[in-house]
């Protein structure tokens, strides 16, 4: 079989090398964009060929690299990773197109973006934990360069903080992965980092707890969960537009993806024991992020804090340990990537015109830039979770799923939706409504066709997923149910019936 995943992961890396040798600098960005459409095409092919209704890993490839360490190129895609791969492959070309403001060291910039894509795609497809770690960690380098070289004001501080903060989590993750591999060696005779082999291990509850902690710390920093979120506002604010889009759109999902893929399945007992506590931290983060976002004077920082709040929803959905919660968590990862990605793009567009991000510097923009204002309001609604747009589906599923097992958590979290309306709509009001009281704002040009072209695909997906989420959900569901079955089989936890039977009956009918 054609190794389509290897192809998918390698194209951006090869493209990065190609970009580095492009002779004329004005050609670098167009060539980069063109090359980044290739992985998008492959991702489209994968989405098309993906068999819905199957829980296992598809397109699997297995090549042993080094027998004594039990490490190999084990990759596969299931319902959890499928949409994230599509999201990554979509956001990279979009952010490259939106990067015309980058004029210095364009080659390195485009190459960094493409290497970043390889790292992100690699994380989502890897089923060998050591290879997963390699991709998980390598993502830091291009993002560090993106923030540090092309960022604004306080970029070096933000870049170094980002790198060291997240690398600290990775250190314990690596220790956990190595310990797991050695444990596999003790139990099966040869060390292995293969995910499916590790699933068969018999891990004591104590060991599960320690390993869970090691993995969870790394992923919690990446998500980021309160109180480990302090790197995020700096990194988001100082990063260039494309950096913020990828950071919020995809990078944060590495954490939530890691929770689902590894913590839930490898350490089910520890997951069941601690789920209410982690969900509580997530709920706190939802409220905290939203409240802090309300008072931010810098609109980019506001969106950054809104990410803390939104990612809290995703983590809540995951640790609700119900079908709806997990489904909501997965779909919400995509939704947040689209909506927040679009918001960062929009902020970048106005920043290019005005070179400020202070909310108080704007006012009445709807009069001078009506198209821009329309897109902004639309995206804000998607982010808030207006019914008919994608955010609603995700948040609804998360709240429904978590109400089944953690009703108290769900009720508090619901206030986060209200607060989201407060911070986004209040920001909209201050920036866009009223008279144009600053002379600098009166001459601003509305969106150019290129900028609209950047936003339209995202907006279309927002509407599509909001109106007709079925294609996405029916690809996610089998994999999610599979995870829950694994938890039920290894612990005495039982998924609430409503969370399962209804949907299963539905499937039987169809």
């Amino acid at each position: 079989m054609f190794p389509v995943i290897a192809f998918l992961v390698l194209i951006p890396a090869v493209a990065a090398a190609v970009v580095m040798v492009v002779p004329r600098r004005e050609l670098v960005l167009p060539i980069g964009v063109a090359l980044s459409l290739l992985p998008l095409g492959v991702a489209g092919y994968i989405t098309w060929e993906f068999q819905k209704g199957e829980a296992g890993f598809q397109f699997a490839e297995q090549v042993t690299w080094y027998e004594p360490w039990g490490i190999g190129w084990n990759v596969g895609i299931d319902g959890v990773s499928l949409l994230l791969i599509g999201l990554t492959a979509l956001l990279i070309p979009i952010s490259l197109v939106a990067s015309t403001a980058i004029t210095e060291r364009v080659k390195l910039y485009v190459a960094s973006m493409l290497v970043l894509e390889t790292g992100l795609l690699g994380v989502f497809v890897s089923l060998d934990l050591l290879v997963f770690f390699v991709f998980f960690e390598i993502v830091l380098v291009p993002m560090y360069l993106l923030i540090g070289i092309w960022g604004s004001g306080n970029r070096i501080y933000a870049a170094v903080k980002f790198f060291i903060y997240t690398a600290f989590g990775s250190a314990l993750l690596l220790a956990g992965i190595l310990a797991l591999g050695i444990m596999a060696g003790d139990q099966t005779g040869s060390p292995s980092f293969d995910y499916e082999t590790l699933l068969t291990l018999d891990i004591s509850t104590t060991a599960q707890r320690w390993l869970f902690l090691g993995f969870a710390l790394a992923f919690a920093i990446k998500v980021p969960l309160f109180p480990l979120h302090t790197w995020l506002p700096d990194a988001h604010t100082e990063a260039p537009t494309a950096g913020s889009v990828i950071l919020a759109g995809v990078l944060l999902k590495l954490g939530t993806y890691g929770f689902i893929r590894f913590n839930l399945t490898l350490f089910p007992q520890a997951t069941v024991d601690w789920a209410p506590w982690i969900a509580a931290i997530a709920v706190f983060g939802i409220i905290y992020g939203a409240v802090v976002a309300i008072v931010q004077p810098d609109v980019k920082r506001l969106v950054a804090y809104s990410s803390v709040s939104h990612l809290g929803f995703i983590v809540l959905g995951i640790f609700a340990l119900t079908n709806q919660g997990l489904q909501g968590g997965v779909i919400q990862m995509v939704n947040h990537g689209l909506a927040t990605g679009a918001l960062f793009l929009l902020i970048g567009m106005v920043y290019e015109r005005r070179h400020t991000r202070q909310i108080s510097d704007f006012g009445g923009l709807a009069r001078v830039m009506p198209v821009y204002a329309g897109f902004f309001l639309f995206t804000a609604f998607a982010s808030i979770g207006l019914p008919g747009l994608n955010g609603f589906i995700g948040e609804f599923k998360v709240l429904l799923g978590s109400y089944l097992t953690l009703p108290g958590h769900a009720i508090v979290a619901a206030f986060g939706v209200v607060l989201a309306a407060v911070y986004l709509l209040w920001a909209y009001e201050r920036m866009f409504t009223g008279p144009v009281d600053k002379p600098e704002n009166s001459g601003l040009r509305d969106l150019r066709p290129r900028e609209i072209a950047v936003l339209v695909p995202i907006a279309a997906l927002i509407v599509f997923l909001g109106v007709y989420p079925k294609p996405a959900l029916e690809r996610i569901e089998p994999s999610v149910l599979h995870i829950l079955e694994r938890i039920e089989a290894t612990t005495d936890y039982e998924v609430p019936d409503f969370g399962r039977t209804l949907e299963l009956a539905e499937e039987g009918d169809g």
Partner: protein
Amino acid sequence: MENFSWLAIAPDGILLLGALGVLGAEVIWKPGHRVWAAITGGSVVLAILMALVQWNRVADQGASLHYSGPGVGLDATTPMYVLDAFSAFGGVILYSVTGLALVAAWRLVADLDTRGAEFVALTLLSAIGLHLMVASANLVMLFLSLEVASISLYVIAGFTRERIDADESAMKYFLLGSFASAVFVYGIALVFAGTGTTSIYGATGLVAHLDSSIVVQPGVLLAGIAMLIVGLGFKVSAAPFHMWAPDVYQGAPSGAVGFMSAGVKVAGFAVLARVLAVGFERRIDDWAPALAVIAVVSIVVGTAFAIAQTDLKRMLAYSGVAHAGFIATGLVAGVDGIPAIWFYVATYAIQLIGAFTVVSVVGSHTGGASAIADYSGLAQRRPALAALLATMMLAMAGIPLTSGFIGKAAVFTAAIDAGYLWLAIAALVAAVAGLYFYLNVIVVMYMRAPALAEGPGAAVATPEAGPTDRAVLAVAGALTIVLGIIPWPLLNAARDALPL
């Protein structure tokens, strides 16, 4: 002499001939550095080839003991020197490192004029000493090899004597190094007092003795082991025996520091592995915890001080202290950790030479100074140099897809497997702190504006790398990346490179 084979000493003999050849040719004909290059290059390449022949021989016929003779407590089966997979592999690594380092130092050699021949000869002699260390099967022989290597290095450290700090460098290295040697000799004496032998192998050697007899005075033996660790800990600049490293690195010629640091690390840890993991294998519960403590102290001290440095060479010296700690982390696993250590020291040696070559190119314009501030904006002036140094920094920091990550994963796996999970976690967390100073170099090169005409020593125009520098940088960069993605060949070889 029946136990003697020419093959066992062939590589060292060839290098000795090379060293004498360079000196002799210079005295008699004064032919200039191109002829030295031919002689040196020829002998180093031949030595590597002979080491590979040894490697094949050992793989075919098994290890053999060589060059034994009567002596104190020795009989015919207790060798001074062994040819085993360990020494053959060590030979390949050490001679390759020497060759790479000499190419990197060649600009310095050419500049030194007639004294260049001495420099080359000293480097080769030192390489012989380093390899003899790896192959020594007797503590006395080990001490002699150590001195051969060290005394040559003391001279090299002060070779650019027109620089003020060169005197300090050589003097400090010599005095502290001699002190460490003295401690080491005392350790040998105590081991002899405790066991009645200085030989590792053979019927009356340490291994056999510890296997078969009860140590009457364990305290004496333990003190001896401790002093051996201290002496070797000094050579590999493990904390708290690292004080000399920053000053010596800073004052020594940049072109030579790569060899000084890399060669000694390789040989020093190889010796620690043979003496501790093999010779005192029975006593692993005594020395492994001590080594674990040294590892943690080295990593913490090295990292903490490296963060505070403003000079790249000093920073690399302190980072070397931390690296000594990381390598020691693998050694606590005993023999099982040896493949990991081999991989780590071999790749780290390459990274060191690459990094110091960049330092030497950038510093050649500023009189050998290497303030990190001089590197600001290097990415715009010399993109290739900056990219290479950045790669080396990422590799030393242990970022994936570089050989540094595989090395760290290997030693930590060995430590966890041996039950030292706490040590691996401590080392991993400290490695994150270490990111700060490695990243700082990248920050300065890529994210700060060039410091044009700012103060003395400002990097007004960084010179281009010469052809020799470019060759070394290409090799070091390629090896670091390739071994980060396809480490299997070296890992497999290292798994076979076990001592007798």
